[in-house]
């Protein structure tokens, strides 16, 4: 039975239709896997078994029909910064302990409409700040391939859940690489759509101009299906774009003939692990073999992306996170004698070190007298980076390169060195600054750890990068490998409660 937990959504849909299994069986299998593995991995912060089973029962009869909604009966994990009605949403932070959102995020509404079954809320770095999921106030998630290593971040929980069969699909959020980097570390497909492609309504904001919700899956087809379900303009999000959503999954192709791929020169510079470099170069050769014309391309301002990002993202975060002050909801310090003490103690107690670091950085960057030197300058860099990409896309259909400089690092290895941690996002951040879509697809292993290939597309060119990733995936077998299972479950997660 447990093999059900390892199947893709596509396979499950076929089995449902043939009457070989049912949503109830699949959800049971997924919870069995969670019981067996999550004590070790800690992918979830909150589970709702009863609601998931009740939902599954509702779809049992429907899924055999021709007109069953696209994700009917498919178990999905949500990163804990996506609001779900009446259940906890903590963003991995102590300051939101006890908070239950009174509403569903737009993506959640769309998932429910598509028949998806929400398994629970998955762990993440506090307010999506970090690169390893070690910054969660509720303890780190571990990499299913090697439990001494991080799953990446900040969507470490949902990504580990998908890799380990604790969910079939997941939604994460990507502000500077937070879907693609953990996808690469955990050997699954992770995609950041174009900014504006997916509604952010109900995604707890970290950096509003960079955040984007995206799919995490075990195959490109699955990622395409999930993106199709959540994409499209939303009247509740002014920054969501009025651009038609194609039937991504139906449009996938397996040949790259006629496709022009640009190999980003700056992504193969100093700091790139030799093993990762080799795997990515080999993947590019595979693309060439599939008919793609591959040529080097330069993004001259890419090296300024990280510094610009670490001005813009903290600046927006310092403002977005100001609302967590103990007045309306979440943590409030005990017996503050006055208002200022209430604010400062609540925030001191509620936020972790990385969040405080970025709030201070952002506050400083926006302060009168520093605004021009930092924030405005970073915006100008952002424009240059966008122009670099525009120029590249005049010659190429998509750009390729590594997702991360290294494979998954060890837990604790970089916690005390924020700058080292930040470098983990050096190849992913430029896309967020430019608002472009990118996907990570498994392209090899180094020392038993997965490596990802990043494919970057034009704005709203998701179909193209899905095509490249799909063709590559179908030509290789990396996506079929599954991480080792825990020798023995160390304590079931049945008792997992809302933090």
């Amino acid at each position, binding site marked *: 039975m447990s093999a059900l937990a390892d199947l893709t959504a596509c396979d499950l849909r076929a089995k449902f239709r043939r009457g070989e299994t049912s949503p109830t069986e699949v959800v049971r299998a997924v919870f069995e896997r969670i019981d067996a593995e999550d004590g070790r991995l800690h992918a979830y912060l909150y589970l709702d078994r009863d609601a998931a089973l009740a939902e599954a029962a509702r779809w049992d009869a429907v899924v055999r029909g021709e007109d069953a909604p696209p994700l009917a009966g498919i178990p999905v994990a949500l990163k804990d*910064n*996506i*609001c779900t009605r009446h259940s906890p*949403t903590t*963003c991995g932070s102590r300051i*939101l302990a006890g*908070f239950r*959102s*009174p*509403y569903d*995020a737009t993506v959640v509404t769309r998932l429910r409409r598509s028949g998806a079954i929400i398994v629970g809320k998955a762990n993440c770095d506090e307010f999506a700040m970090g690169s390893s999921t070690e910054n969660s106030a509720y303890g780190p998630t571990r990499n299913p391939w090697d439990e001494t290593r991080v799953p990446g971040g900040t969507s470490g929980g949902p990504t580990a859940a998908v890799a380990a069969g604790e969910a079939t699909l997941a939604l994460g959020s990507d502000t500077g690489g937070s879907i693609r980097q953990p996808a690469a570390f955990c050997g699954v497909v992770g995609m950041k759509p174009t900014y504006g492609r997916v509604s*952010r*309504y*109900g*995604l*707890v*904001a970290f*950096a*509003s*101009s960079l955040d984007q919700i995206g799919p995490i899956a075990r195959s490109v087809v699955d990622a395409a299906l999930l993106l199709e379900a959540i994409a499209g303009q939303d*009247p*509740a*999000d*002014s*920054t969501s774009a009025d651009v038609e959503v194609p039937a991504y999954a139906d449009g996938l192709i397996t040949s790259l003939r006629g496709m022009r791929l640009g190999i980003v020169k700056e992504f193969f510079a100093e700091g790139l692990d030799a093993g990762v470099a080799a795997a990515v170069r080999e993947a590019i050769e595979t693309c060439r073999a599939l008919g793609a014309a591959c040529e080097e391309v330069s993004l001259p301002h890419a090296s300024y992306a990280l510094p610009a990002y670490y001005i813009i993202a903290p*600046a*927006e975060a*310092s*403002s977005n996170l*100001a*609302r967590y*002050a103990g*007045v*309306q*909801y979440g943590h409030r310090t005990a017996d503050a004698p006055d*208002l200022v003490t209430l*604010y400062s103690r609540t925030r001191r107690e509620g936020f972790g070190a990385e969040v405080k670091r970025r709030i201070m950085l952002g*506050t400083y960057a*926006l*302060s*009168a007298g520093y*605004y021009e030197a930092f*924030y*405005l300058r970073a915006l100008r860099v952002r424009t240059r980076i966008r122009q670099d990409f525009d120029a590249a896309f005049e010659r190429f259909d998509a750009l390729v390169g590594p997702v991360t400089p290294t494979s998954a690092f060890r837990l604790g290895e970089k916690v005390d060195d924020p700058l080292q941690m930040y470098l983990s996002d050096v190849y992913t951040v430029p896309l967020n600054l430019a608002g472009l879509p990118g996907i990570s697809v498994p392209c090899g292993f180094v020392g038993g750890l997965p490596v990802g290939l990043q494919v970057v597309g034009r704005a709203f060119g998701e179909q193209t990068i899905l095509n490249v990733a799909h063709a590559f995936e179908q030509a290789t077998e990396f996506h079929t490998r599954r991480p080792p299972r825990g020798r023995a479950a160390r304590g079931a997660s049945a008792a997992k409660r809302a933090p």
Partner: protein
Amino acid sequence: MARVDAGLRHETVIGLEVHVQLSTASKMFCGCAVAFGAPPNTRTCPVCLGLPGSLPVLNRRAVDLGIRTALALGCHINPVSQFHRKNYYYPDLPKNYQISQYEYKDHPPLASGGLMRVSTGDEVMEIGIRRVHLEEDTGKLVHAEGRSLVDYNRCGTPLMEVVTEPDLHSPEEARLFLIHLRAMLQFAEVTSGRLEEGTLRCDANLSLRPAGGPHGTRTEIKNMNSLRSVERALRFEEARQRQALERGEEVVQETRHWDEDREVTFSSREKEEAQDYRYFPEPDLTPLQIDAPWVDRIRAGLPELPEARRRRFVEAFGIPEHDAGLLTATRAMAEFFEETVRRFVKPKIVSNWLIGDVAAYLNAAGREIEELPLRPDHLAGLLMLVDTGKLSGRSAKEVLEEMLRTGRPADAIVQERGLVQISDEAMLAAVVQEVIVEHPGPVGDVRAGKDQAVTFLVGQVMKKTRGRANPAMVNRLVREQLGVA
């Protein structure tokens, strides 16, 4: 325009920031209803409460009203404007930032560079409008029994801010400007303009400078919530600064609050460190693009503004400039006038009653005409009674008094009080006969040519009829019976 008091050597410079609550059905960035006086926290949603994950969506209707105002003030409407976040902590501000459109760096507000003309009898003041921008309101703190409670109903209520250049030179000019601005906003149907509900709020900057000299240090005065308090607060502050300067002291740049009860301005106690609001472009809203067709559509639908209506009143109804000015001081008064004239087509008479008895009553009561129960058709009814001789002018004043208080129609009051004018000639002739018999002295005087004695006799008839006799008819009958026509 500058008024320089030579004896005092200083010139007053005033700039105003007027916050206007826009007449929209829903809030600035969400669909919640804008409602005054609803039970606390019943008009809120995730967006106006700033809950995690919520996002603002701009109310297009509020932009329409902003454009209307900008057009009425002759401003340049910026084709692209940007919302900003103004960051500061306060419990009535759920996100701890306010979404506003401050003119900041290279991001312009909705509209800038307008002009308002205000005629003050013999001359015309010209007040520059620096900008018109949109923003959201905050909630309200309620302090009770040593605790502080927050009502978020007002959060996200659409506000427009009209900021003038420092072109005003006396507290009186400031008050006049506000009266005209309010009328304009009411005529443009941008706001109800009711001060007591906080739909118009005003802050002012005031400084003194040597005549023609460089600008002096200014103070910002807040918490003025009526036209009268604006004038009084500015008068107090003007005198306070003048005294300081005359004593050789320096004026401190600070924020001062107006204490309505004690009639003084006082310095805010909190330290006046320049607050750093860390403005930056609101990333949750795309830049506001206003194209020419949008502006044209608003322009085409722009209602008649006070200036135009005043001119029309003079030309179409033949009433004096001065009267027309008073009748167009508020939209409600102008509407009331026109409604009444539609039913009783003697504009000058309607105007006389409105700017006379009715205005006196409003002033004494400190109310606006739309707050009274009096209706235009009822006033027309009253004037009709006078015009057709069914009611004497004196009785009419008495009837109006009750109409203003109760809103009842004139004829009902007249009936009830038995005030119908007696124009029955036979009946009045009998009363005149009685009076002539009872007052031989004055009768003799009349016959001897003393005409004032006629007035006395008429008065006696009026007295006998308790004021209900038609005075013109009585006058004629007295003369006829005494043969002195």
